[in-house]
Structures are given as structure tokens and as C-alpha cells.
């Protein structure tokens, strides 16, 4: 008798759990299916967009490449993202190496300033950056965008990487030093390989950021041919008169898929990195 009851509760719990899992899964997936479906929709407006379009067509994707500047925006963003990743990783690793492995005057003060800097909302500086770039002729250039993109994340990245390097024993460095390796060799041959998990995290974030960064390009970029995808996509949807919803959907799908794949493949690194960011304050 008793066993039967536990069996019943077990089945009941199991079905409740599965019900919950299915409901949540539907809520999670539906908006994504809806936007993918809309991107194949044959009528351009939002009103007729649906998850399962009546007459599925690739026209939106073709239009996106033929009749809009999407390919240009895409290439711009790709360039910015690549440069952002390269310089972001390079500068923050070098900085973290210096802070983690060397004693020097002003180290404490610099670390404290890094801590304070990373608390500033990037927005506070954006207007000022705009005025400064106006002064130095960096306005409306992708280079300027990279400068700001790298600098804005630098304090956080250095702090994060420094914390990671601090946890790696210095015995490897010391052994190499005895063998006559220079400090630059130690950096390239020992520190960089050991810090790869955290470097991956920084690299992915630095690469992914420009695809979705809105405020900075909106401020710093004005000409059509220098726009990044975030600005381009936003202009498609914010202009109610344009009625380009399905184009926006197609563009979104093309951006979201590579980023999502990247995030899912590297999710272990990313979650660990974010966790470390919290632990280190």
C-alpha cells in the first residue's frame, strides 16, 4: 500500500516537473522561433509577422544584401570586433602580468584607480569622448570606436586577469628565470598558456561587444558607410514609417546565430569568467 502511494507521488511529481520544463522551454523558444519565422515572411510589416509564415521566402535575406547597407555594416563590425579583441586581450594581459608579477612604485595606487574606474558607468565618459574625438579628428572613424571599446573594458579586464594570474603559482616563472629566460619570454611561453581559459573569456567578450554596442557607435559614428550592425538594425526598427520589420528580423538572425553559437560552444569559459569577475569584485 505504502509503496503504491510513493509510486503515485513519484509519477505526479515527475509529470509536474516535466510540465514545468516544457512550459518554460516554450516560453524561452517561442520569441526566437517567431523572429526566425518573421525573417522568412513574405510581407514586410510587423502586423503580418508570424512564427510560421504563410509563404516562406528568402527574399528578406536577398534584399538585406542587395538593397541595404547590411554587408557594409557587417564588415565594419567585424573589423572593429577583431581589432577590439586583439588589442583588448594584448593590453589587458600585459597589464595583468605587470600587476601580478612585479613590484613597483605606485602599484597600490594604480590598482585602486583601476578599481574605481571600472565602477564608472561608461556612459558618463561617452559625451566627453565625443568632444575629445571631435578635437582630434577621430570622430566618425572605426579606429576611434576601437580605442574606446578597448579602453572602456580595460580596467575590468586587467583586474580580472590579475586575479587569475595571482592564483597561478610563480614557481614556473622562477624556474624559467633560473634557466635564463627573459621576462618577455616568460610572458609568452608561460603566462599566456597558463591563462588561456581567462584569456578566452576576455577575447570572446571583446569580440562580441561591438556587435551589440549601441551608445558608443550612435555617438561617434555619423556616416552611413561607417555604421555598425547594432545601429543599422536599430534604425530599421525604430523608424515606424519604413516598415522594414522582416528585414530587421533577417538581419537579427544573421547576427544572433554566430554569437549564440560562440556563446554556447564556449559557455564553460564564459560562465567561469563571469563568476571570477564577481569574486574579484
Amino acid at each position, binding site marked *: 500500500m505504502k509503496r503504491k502511494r510513493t509510486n503515485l507521488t513519484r509519477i505526479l511529481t515527475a509529470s509536474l516537473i516535466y510540465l514545468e520544463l516544457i512550459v518554460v522551454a516554450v516560453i524561452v523558444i517561442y520569441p526566437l522561433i517567431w523572429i526566425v519565422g518573421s525573417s522568412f515572411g513574405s510581407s514586410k510589416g510587423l502586423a503580418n509577422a508570424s512564427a510560421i509564415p504563410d509563404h516562406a521566402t528568402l527574399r528578406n535575406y536577398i534584399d538585406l544584401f542587395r538593397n541595404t547597407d547590411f554587408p557594409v555594416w557587417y564588415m565594419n563590425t567585424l573589423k572593429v570586433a577583431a581589432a577590439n579583441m586583439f588589442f583588448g586581450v594584448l593590453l589587458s594581459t*600585459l597589464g595583468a602580468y605587470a600587476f601580478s608579477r612585479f613590484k613597483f612604485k605606485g602599484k597600490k595606487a594604480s590598482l585602486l584607480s583601476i578599481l574605481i574606474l571600472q565602477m564608472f558607468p561608461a556612459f558618463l565618459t561617452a559625451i566627453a569622448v565625443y568632444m575629445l574625438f571631435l578635437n582630434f579628428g577621430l570622430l566618425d572613424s572605426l579606429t576611434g570606436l576601437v580605442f574606446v571599446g578597448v579602453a572602456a573594458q580595460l580596467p575590468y579586464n586587467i583586474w580580472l586577469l590579475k586575479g587569475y594570474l595571482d592564483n597561478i603559482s610563480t614557481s614556473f616563472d622562477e624556474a624559467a628565470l633560473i634557466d635564463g629566460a627573459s621576462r618577455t619570454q616568460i610572458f609568452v611561453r608561460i603566462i599566456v598558456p597558463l591563462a588561456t581559459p581567462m584569456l578566452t573569456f576576455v577575447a570572446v567578450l571583446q569580440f562580441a561587444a561591438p556587435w551589440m554596442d549601441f551608445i558608443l557607435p550612435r555617438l561617434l559614428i555619423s556616416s552611413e558607410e561607417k555604421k555598425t550592425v547594432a545601429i543599422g538594425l536599430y534604425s530599421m526598427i525604430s523608424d515606424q514609417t519604413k516598415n522594414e520589420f522582416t528585414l530587421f528580423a533577417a538581419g537579427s538572425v544573421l547576427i544572433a546565430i554566430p554569437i549564440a553559437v560562440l556563446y554556447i560552444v564556449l559557455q564553460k569559459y564564459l560562465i567561469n569568467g563571469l563568476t571570477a569577475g564577481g569574486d574579484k569584485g
Partner: protein
Amino acid sequence: MTALHTKQTPAWAAGLLSAIVWGAGQTLNRQYLKGLLFFLIGAGAFAIEIATGRYTDMAGGFRFRENGGFFLKGLWGLFTLGTQPRTMGLTGLTAGDHSIVLMANGIIALFILLLFLFFYIWNIRDAAKARSQLNETGMLHSSLQEIKKLWESMYAYIILSPAALLTLFICVLPIVFGVLIAFTDYSRSNLPPTKLVHWVGLNNFVTVTEVFSWMHTFLGVLLWTFVWAILATITTYFFGFFQAVLLNSSIVRFKKLWRSIYILPWAVPAMISALVFKSMFNGQFGPISQFLLDMGLTSERIYWFTDPSNTNLARILALLINLWLGFPYFMALIGGTLTTVSESYYEAARMDGANAGQMFWKITFPIVYKATAPLLMLSFVSNFNNFGVIYFLTEGGPANPDYNFAGNTDLLITWLYKLTLDNRLYNMGAVMSIIVFLIVASFSLINLRKSKSFEEL
């Protein structure tokens, strides 16, 4: 012995020499190369000033505005913010001062001057130190030896310098600039180049606290920002926790499949998701509104984010959409922590006759909470400044006529954006930035003081 004694120059004299002429003290110490280097740095500073100024044309005496070079004119500009506005003539704008450009140049000049000041003090101290060493031991390193030693000890500085320069000019400089703007009247009614900006002291801060509409907006937005940040953090954390525990249970099969589905909102860029939701909940054309109408559940279209008579609807919906966006991260995180909880705890509890609820609240929750608590504060801070969700989803709407340039779902950060970019009230925006920073910094500091890395500092 006495001969040597008379030859001794006191250390302060070498320092004084270097104070008068860069590198002179080093030359006295017979460290010629080092002296030359210091001299060149000092001469460089003067050369910049002379070359960029107009020192040949001083008929009317020295005037900062007309004759000053990079440093002197820069400092003059920073103090006065210009004296001659440009006016619209028949042939275009006349020549004059642009207050904001002057301010930016002034800050840069000040920064570089401080850098030179650092070298100047180093130059004096070095001369005095080397001299006293010479007096005591009668020995001195050659310049070359010292420079080599310096190079070794400078390795950290050298590899730090690119990061430091970038941070200085693109983070620190703008922050100083932004803070200074809060003390000026730089706004749409007073835009350069045809008008001059002035220092107004604490006037803008007084306006925020004393003018009712500003105070009203500020307190309203601040309160909602706190409510938003707290609720957004709690909902994502607990729902993520809940999903992680469910997935961890032995009943559930195909765990990997479920997890891959739930991680999607985290992997898709948040801006795209927010814009998709904005379209889905579009009052006029959106599918949700249409669906409810078709099913006969509502008699008219619902204007989710724009209906001023139903502000809580927009707020609750924004929180729910934020939950959609935010729970996967905590789910993945807590899922990872759950696997580290030793099974032996549960076995022991089961032997003592504990039920599932007790096991959760007495074992699972405390362990996971302890491991994830620092992230809660981090999540609170990032929700406090969650520009993306609010701006792309609601644009701050529904509009609130009682507020100054803010809607009912506006957070401090989106209000700040509207103040500066849409309404060009740069000075008020700067005041708000300072307030946002103070709030965020105080919360971050609470978190930080508990962390290990801070103690090491």
C-alpha cells in the same frame, strides 16, 4: 682629507641646481648623460610652449589668449572657458572661442603639465640623492649603469604604459571632463560656438534639489531604479536557482537537451532579444495584442509599453522580460555549483529522516548561496545600470507628464541618456552621472570590502 672636505657640496645644493636648470645637478655630480636626458625633457616642455604660442608678437605685452602656447593658453582656457563668443556674420562664423574645446585642451594641457612636474621633481630628488651618496661613499654609478638599472626596474612600467596611456586619455580624461561639465551651464540654451559656457559652481546641484520638477523626477526615477534593480536581481536569481534544481533532480532525463534550450536567451545578444520583445508587444501591430483580441480575451488592443494609464503593466512586463533574459546565467552558474555539493550530506540527512524541502533549505540553499552571494551584488549593480533592456524595450515609456524628460520605466541611466543625447542638457546629465556613480560605487565598495583581493591590496 680636508681637501676632500672642502670639495663637498651639500646634497641640497645639487637639488637646487637641478631645480633651476633641469639636469644641472646631475652635471655637477658628473653624471653627464643623465643630466643631458633631464635637460632634454625640460627643454622639451619649454619648446612645446614656445613653438605653439606666439611669443614673437608681444607688442601689447603678454596676453594668455593671444600669446599663450599649448600649456599657458590651455590653462587660461580651462579657467575662463573663453572670452569671445563667435558670432554669425555675413561670411559665416567669426573667429572666437569655443568653450568646450578650450576646456578639453585645458585638461589635456594640465595632464601633460602634471607629467612634466613629475619628471621635474624626479630630476631634483635624483640630483640630491646622488650627491648625498657621493658625499657619503665617494662612489657613484655611471649614467649608463644607472640607466641600465632603471630599464630593468622599469619593465613593469613599460609593459603597463600602453594600457595606462589609453586609460588616461579615454577613461580618466573624459571622467574629469564629465565631472567638470556638472559645474557649468553647458546646455541646449547655451551651446558653443556662438555662446560661451561659464562656470556656475554648484548651481546645477542646487537646481536638482530645489526645483520641484527636477527633484520630483529624480526621486521618482531613483525609487523605480532601486525597485527594478532589486526585483530584477531576485527574480532572475531565484528562477535560475529553481530551474537548476529541477534539472539536477534524478527524475529528469535528457538533461543536456533541456539545458541547451534554457541557455539560449543568454547566448542570443540581449539587444536583439529586447527589440524582438518590443515588436511582439507592440500595441498597434504586435502579435500578442492581436492574439488576445482574436481569442476574445480583451476587447481592445493593449498598449503594453505606451499606455500612460497603466504604468505598472509596462513595469511588470519589463521585469518579466528581464527574467527571460537573465535567468539562464544564474541557472548555468548554480547548476555548476550544485554538482560540487557532496552527496554525503544528503545521505546523512536522509538517514536522519529529513524530507526534500528540509534538505533543500538546510543543505543546498546555504551552500549555493555562499558560493554565489558576491555575484548577486554584481548583478544588482548591472541591473541598476541596465540601459539595454529598458531603452530598447520601452524607451522609458509610458510617458509621464509630471517628469522632466523621463517616462515611467526610465532608469537613472536611460534618463541620463535622454537628458544628454535627446535634450542636450549636458550639465544636468553630468550631475546625474555623478550621482549614479556615487550610488554604484558605494554598493560596489560594500561588496569589495568583503572580497579577498581587496584585503591583499
